């Protein structure tokens, strides 16, 4: 069945909202250096200031401008989203698709490995690892990806198994196509909706986990991360700072995650005929 996914995405309200929000975060991340008035990492003598014209959201305990840190934190969040998304999708594709295409013992071994890995709680493993190395943003991306690709790989494998039995793939074989051609020209393009879904899903999870870990204090102190900001803000819960320190940061994080979730939801609706039908019926009511 031929579906124009982009059109389906922009047609649904959730999809539109998600895209707008994500664009907003993206614009902020890109223009942060121009919008921020202070260096987000630069401490100053004016600590724990309430919002004023000079500091729109006040300053934190070591005198850094919270507004500037909020703006720059977007970059970190999106980097994690993109990094985890790309890396996880890549791992899932390579492992899932190769298992489906090669089959046999290779497939069976990989599937059992996935079964084993899927029970490992990623969060706890990362906390344990962090006890030895304090992860910077790249190690974090790597750790999250390496611990969460299994679900995606299963999805990709299932889809590839069905794709390789398609008549159009058989037809290409009767023209003399080799395996590489089939993978590049037929299987990967037809996998792309699934891959996009895996990407969005893992990006969302990546953002969530990074924020969660940072909130628990597992992050390089020098990174400008929303999770880390909330971690610090909570230490001064007895002051009024949560109003301009904790809430805006939490909101920013929520908006980003919501944007991703909305896009994912709209996309899933477009892909799943059953969901699509329910949606259409809702519209008619």
């Amino acid at each position: 069945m031929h579906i124009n996914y982009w059109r389906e995405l922009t047609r649904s309200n959730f999809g539109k909202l998600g895209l707008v929000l994500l664009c907003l975060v993206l614009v902020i991340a890109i223009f942060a250096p121009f919008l921020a008035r202070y260096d987000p990492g630069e401490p100053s003598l004016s600590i724990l200031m309430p919002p004023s014209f000079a500091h729109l959201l006040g300053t934190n305990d070591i005198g850094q401008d919270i507004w500037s840190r909020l703006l720059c934190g977007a970059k970190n969040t999106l980097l994690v989203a993109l990094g985890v998304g790309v890396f996880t999708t890549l791992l899932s594709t390579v492992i899932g698709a190769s298992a489906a295409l090669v089959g046999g013992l290779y497939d069976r071994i990989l599937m059992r490995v996935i079964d084993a890995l899927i029970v490992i709680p990623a969060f706890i493993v990362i906390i344990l690892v962090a006890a030895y190395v304090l992860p910077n943003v790249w190690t974090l991306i790597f750790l999250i990806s390496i611990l969460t690709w299994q679900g995606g790989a299963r999805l990709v494998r299932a889809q590839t198994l069905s794709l390789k039995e398609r008549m159009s793939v058989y037809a290409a074989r009767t023209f003399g196509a080799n395996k590489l051609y089939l993978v590049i020209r037929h299987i990967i393009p037809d996998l792309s909706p699934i891959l996009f879904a895996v990407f969005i899903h893992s990006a969302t999870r990546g953002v969530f986990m990074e924020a969660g870990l940072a909130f628990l204090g597992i992050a390089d102190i020098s990174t400008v991360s929303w999770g880390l900001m909330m971690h610090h803000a909570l230490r001064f819960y007895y002051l009024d700072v949560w109003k301009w320190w904790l809430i805006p940061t939490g909101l920013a994080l929520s908006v980003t995650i919501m944007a991703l979730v909305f896009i994912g939801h709209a996309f899933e609706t477009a892909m799943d005929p059953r969901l699509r039908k329910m949606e259409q019926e809702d519209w008619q009511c």
Partner: protein
Amino acid sequence: MLELRELEVSYGKRKVLHGINLNLKRGESLAIVGGSGGGKTTLGLSIMGLVEGTIRGEILLDGKNLVAVPEKALRKIRWNQIAMVFQNVENALNPVYTVLDQVSEPIVAHNLRDRYDAKRRAEELMKMVNLPEGRFLAYPHQLSGGEKQRVLIAMALANDPDLIIMDEPTTALDALTKVEIINLIRNMCNERELTILLLTHDLYAASMLSDRMAVLYAGRILESGFTPALLSNPRHPYTRGLIRCYPNMTTTKDLQGIKGMMDFLDTGCPFHPRCTQSIGICREKAPKLEENDGRFIACHRGGIIPLLEVREVSKTFDSVKAIDSIDLTLYEGETLALVGESGSGKTTTAKTVIGLFEATEGQMYLEGERILGRDKNFYQSVQMIFQNPMEALSHRLSVQEAVREPLDIQKQGNREQRESMVRHILEEVELPSTQSFMNKYPHQLSQGEAQRVGIARALILNPKLLIADEPTSALDASTQAKVVKLLLNLQEKRGIGMLFITHNLALARKISDRLAVMLKGNIVEEGPSNELISSPLHPYTKDLLKAAPTLSANVLVVPTNNKNDGQGCPYANRCSKATEVCFKEKPKLRSCSSHRVACMNLKPEKEE
């Protein structure tokens, strides 16, 4: 009695006959068949010594070389030893004399009898050819075509010749008159031991009147042999083409022509521009008429070649035998229809041949060479049309991209060449080659259009073998008719050998030269389509024929009984004639008349 040795006739610079060698025994009848303009009449006239061109070679009549005989002596031989029934009845008779006068003329002219006796003799002859008595004194324009033909035959018989050359004696006649004339000639032959050289393009007359047959094309004999064998199993592509385009009640396949026009060529095989299996040497050297398995054939490739041979191929899925040691041969330019109910292994056979499945046992040969690995070259000569066109086309590829895909994979030509090939092939399958159509995606096409795109994809590599797996079962009847016609036309043009898989026997009979009936992975009967349809031997084929669509309502009871233990004849549980042996032992495919059939009860059935 008559022998032609290296006979060559040319009109000026144009050579009309090339190296003809023929041998005709006394009492024998030989038909020279071929399209018009092939040199048949020139051959007849040159034996009579009436040809206006230059003759080289020898024409031996009872050992005497007629070419060397001077005109005066030749006149004595003419009509006394060799007579001719001329073509074109309308002009052969003189309009100002009565037919009686004209029949007696050769007798008088040769001073055999006096005028009175000659007339009595002429009357006798005319009675013998069944001309009504009141017509003896009629003028030619008062006679019908059939009567004029009788007069001409009487005239040829006038001086009791040994050899009669008949040039198209039946061509212009209606069916019943034709049969009368044919019977007349047959009776005469039986009574008088006449030797007949029949020149005709009418295969029916040739089959009725001749013992042997030679096929003449552009001044060369391409094939010769005994008439029934030659007609039922033509082995030169031209002979097959002649038979295919001759409308008759025996053939069930639609009429098919021969591509191109006849042309007299100085070099190479005269048929090569129209031949679908010609190779390099065919253009350079004319083939010699050589004996090959009881037949004389002039072809560099030894006649129609077997394109695909499947030998004892089996395919097993886990423990299920999907196909069980099947044997098939598909000749160049031929359609072999594989029919049978669903689940009988037809598609498995197709996919095993094309290489989507690996055969468990057995060998396959393409143009005589064993198929070992299937590389890009293999797929250039073997292609497949899939059952469901919508599924076989990727939904992401536009028509243009889909049709170009085989070329992309095979890396043929540059982009522009590929695109022009795509446009050309789209026109060939009768689809628009406009940009707007080529930009369409499969879901924007109708079923018929999509299947044509599928056919275009299969044909763009110019394959020799096309495997069509139920190519029309997803289409409605009118679209099916168009697609089938298209395939037959392409076969005519390119000589594609087609393995046509269908469950529709009525369709198979219209498009196939041969039929193979499959049941539970076995071929139970195989033979020429017309014979298999008209006289099926296997009970399963009979039941299939009963179930084939007709336009008259009849209630059909097909036996169903499902206790089958897997051994024995695959049809035993449904066969009305099954005996105990049928459940125990599996019958082998045996030759039986022109079919091959696998049935235990065959012999008792024949005795009935």
